[in-house]
């Protein structure tokens, strides 16, 4: 019986060593704050003034992303944390588009819709003159078309363009927006 104890103990030690190696490949959650901006100001977009619309994201500033960037096996999903206000007396459907080219710099939401930018969050209704807070888990029900923009997420650099429907009458203030990327890779 003693022999079995020793063999089990030895295998447990080897297992621990293998385990330590195995967990170098893992699933990590990367977050990047997009709003408020560097000055601490909320982002405001309207159908008449879209000057604050482009929100550039650079995940390469994140230490964890840098560790995994060279060997990303798959992008699991993207999520958001969002606090937004509808400033008009009619409901709007809020959306976020993703554009891999950070130099695209679209001037208004009509241009975005016509472009190759992919809608990543959609169907989020913000009632008239109300605010919404959507956390990570809730945001998953509004995510659309992940496969279309996985490549852009792997580079870590892309632009987000918030938008709303109706295109000709919206005024939305984004008090907080955090991008959450879940990926599996190896350090």
């Amino acid at each position, binding site marked *: *019986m003693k022999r079995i104890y020793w063999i089990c103990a030895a295998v447990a030690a080897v297992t621990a060593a293998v*385990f330590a190696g*195995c*967990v170098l490949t*893992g*699933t990590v*959650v990367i977050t990047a704050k997009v709003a408020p901006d560097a000055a601490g100001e909320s982002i405001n977009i309207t159908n008449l003034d879209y000057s604050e619309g482009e929100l550039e994201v650079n995940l390469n500033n994140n230490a964890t992303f840098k560790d995994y960037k060279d060997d990303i096996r*798959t992008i699991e999903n993207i999520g958001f944390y969002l606090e937004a206000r509808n400033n008009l007396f009619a409901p709007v459907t809020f959306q976020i588009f993703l554009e891999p080219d950070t130099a695209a710099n679209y001037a208004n939401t009509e241009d975005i819709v016509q472009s190759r930018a992919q809608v990543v969050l959609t169907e989020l209704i913000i009632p008239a003159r109300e605010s919404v807070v959507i956390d990570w888990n809730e945001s998953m029900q509004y995510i659309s078309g992940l496969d279309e923009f996985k490549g852009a997420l792997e580079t870590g650099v892309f632009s987000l363009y918030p938008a709303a429907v109706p295109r000709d009458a919206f005024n939305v203030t984004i008090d907080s927006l955090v991008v959450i990327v879940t990926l*599996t890779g190896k350090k």
Partner: protein
Amino acid sequence: MKRLILITMAASILTAAAATAAPIGLGVSGGALLPAGQEDQGTGSLFAIKVRAHLAGRFAAEPNIHFGSFGDADIAGVGNRKGSSLTHYGVDITWGAPIAAVGFKPYLLLGGAVYNTKRDGDVTSNASGWSFGGGVAVGVRSNLDVDLRGRFNIVSSEGSASKKSVGLTIGVFYYVGR
């Protein structure tokens, strides 16, 4: 297909065990399911039903089914994410002290299974995987073991990657057929 292979294997093992007139253990266990290297999952719970049959020498086989669920993952500032469910069924081969005997009986295990992972917002996955681990069966009577076990699961996933988790359980085996 994987399901059919596993069911056939389990049936063959049980038939062979029954033919030797060795006791067969019926077991249930429960415990914790811990993610390993998965930041998008939290610690959850695990429940298992299994059958233990003597194969040869110190080897025994255990067809089993596990019902697990990871807990919520919580990332500061963005809220939480509901954990996945993880159901797996397969066959373990154990090596250790004889089953259905009184005493303190350490053992090692190696298993293969089909793992079903499901969560709102994620693609449901049915993937093959394997596991290894060990435990101690405390035979309080010749037909009753209290079983403490640790299992490390490795499940293949998209992009030549794998998802890993640890199951820690306590349970009982009741042996019939002696």
